[in-house]
């Protein structure tokens, strides 16, 4: 009786595992298609040929790498993502420290408003940003788009960091205080090294936020500061159906995102809950 019960349970578990893998395969199919078609020629894709191994080629990657517009956009993306990550982790870690280590009036309200700020629709801001940036001449500059990306990354980083910061033991700071350090020295020399894991997590998510961002880049950049998501979207349109190149370029963009996603397993849920990863 006991034997058959445990056997039944085993069979059910096995069936569920198979079913789960089937769902996973279905779920990953569009990603698989993107990765695969980066290695096929446009003409092969457009003629709707069935797949065979002989089609595999690096031709699309070569063309993407030779595409100066895309390479520039990729470089811009990297620059903007790094700069906005740097700014938001720098500024955000200070603010998160202020919120988690001081008791002051309006502390809760301030913390909440940062979270609410992160959830505002970008569309509500972008028209005003467009007019402002055009007015002071920073539209289509790296500075401008970095600033725009900081608008969602600063609140995001603050909210990601607070739980990490709260968990850091106060004893070290108190000891440093006894040794005569001021608040600023404590923050930089004692606190930040202790909170380093949190900083890494926040930085990775801030980087992905900026790397994936589309709407601000669409409205606030032009030929100079265009980022890679815009370049990818402009690869298809009208009569240019270079799906192979689009997929190759997408794969280049997806690589760091997927590496981070798999490396950051533990923090993914919190990362998305703190305000999404949407562009």
């Amino acid at each position, binding site marked *: 009786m006991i034997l058959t019960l445990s056997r039944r349970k085993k069979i059910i578990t096995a069936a*569920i*595992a198979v079913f*789960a*893998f089937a769902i*996973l395969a279905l*779920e990953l*199919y*569009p990603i698989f*298609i*993107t990765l695969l078609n980066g290695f096929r020629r446009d003409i092969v894709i457009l*003629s709707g040929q069935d797949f065979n191994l002989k089609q595999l080629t690096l031709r699309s990657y070569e063309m993407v790498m030779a595409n100066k517009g895309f390479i520039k956009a990729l470089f811009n993306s990297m620059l903007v993502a790094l700069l906005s990550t740097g700014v938001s982790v720098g*500024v955000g870690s*200070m*603010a998160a*420290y*202020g919120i988690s280590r*001081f008791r002051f009036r309006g502390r809760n309200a301030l913390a*909440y408003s940062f*979270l*609410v700020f992160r*959830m*505002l*629709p*970008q*569309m*509500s*801001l972008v*028209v005003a*940003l467009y007019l*402002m940036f055009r007015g002071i001449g920073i539209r289509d500059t790296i500075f401008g788009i970095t*600033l725009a990306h900081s*608008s969602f990354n600063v609140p995001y980083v603050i909210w990601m960091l*607070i*739980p990490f910061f*709260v*968990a850091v033991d106060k*004893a070290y700071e*108190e000891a440093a*205080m*006894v040794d005569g350090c001021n*608040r*600023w020295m404590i923050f930089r020399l004692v606190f930040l090294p202790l909170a380093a894991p949190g900083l890494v997590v926040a930085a990775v998510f801030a980087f992905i936020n900026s790397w*994936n961002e*589309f709407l601000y880049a*669409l*409205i606030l950049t032009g030929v100079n500061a265009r980022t890679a998501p815009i370049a*990818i*979207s402009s690869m298809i349109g009208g009569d240019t159906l270079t799906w192979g190149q689009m*997929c190759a370029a*997408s794969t280049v963009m*997806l690589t760091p995102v997927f590496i*981070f996603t798999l490396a950051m397993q533990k*923090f*993914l*849920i*919190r990362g*998305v*809950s703190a305000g999404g*990863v*949407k562009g």
Partner: protein
Amino acid sequence: MKSSRRQATKPSGVVALQRAGGRGSPVPFLLPALLIVFAVLIFPILFSFVVSLFDWPLSAGGGERSFVGLGNYSELFRDPGFWNSLLLQLGFIFIAIPLELVLGLGAALLLNREFRGGRVIRALMLLPVFFLPVVSGMTWRFMLQPRYGALNNLLVNIGLPEITWLANAGTAYAAIIMQDIWRMWPFVFMLLYAGLAGIPTELLEAAEIDGANFSKRLFKIILPLLYPTILTALLLRIIDALRIFSEVYVMTEGGPGMATTLFSLYTHRIAFGHMKVGLSSAMAIFLLIISIVFAITLVRKNMSLEQLEERGGGQ
């Protein structure tokens, strides 16, 4: 050794903290973030509101601006395009999100047990969530193409006629919803899975021994205990769905016609297609208010600072 030192220093440390202004001013730490937030969040919102009170054409020289008070708002509410986009947006929310919740809950219940490869599946399941929105939109656009798109190949292979998905109003709308479900249901799944893991197994086992069947356990134990998590997922998804833009923009640009001009897409179209910045700002403010209501509900209900502080680092 370490603990004894800590004990020795702690009292005098606290005194020193207080003497050095431990309860002192957080302003220097908060100021840089507040400045940035003011410059690129608060000021644009205020500016949006000001612009929404003007008839403000988008042109390089500035154009003729005239104060119209709340005129843009009344124009907006008389604009059939606005109501169309509101309807499409609501439809999107009411179709996509319940399906995502049902799929997510079903998968979470099913996979709420240990088996080989379970961790790998959960890890890989989240890849679509982090897929670049623009690439997700492009990939779906690609799969939906006639002649060479994967989805149409599938239809032809099982003997059905091809569909020109993105050229017909109904199927294009279905396509943007499918895209969103594909992308976001794993996120709902992961949230609910984490919530389920928090329900003590003894509770469920006890109910099973007492003879409660699955549906009884689901409705009497699991769903009530999971309710806060479900609510969080629902609110997060609504807030997210309210601002969806890039995926739909690269898939259809809001077309064919106005068939997929969701709220953000219509705002974009008024501003940069019709060149009416004032009117689009009125719409932006409208969207902003709705989003803030949902965001505040979410934050107050499920994301208190105290909760975060209790939870500490780690997860």
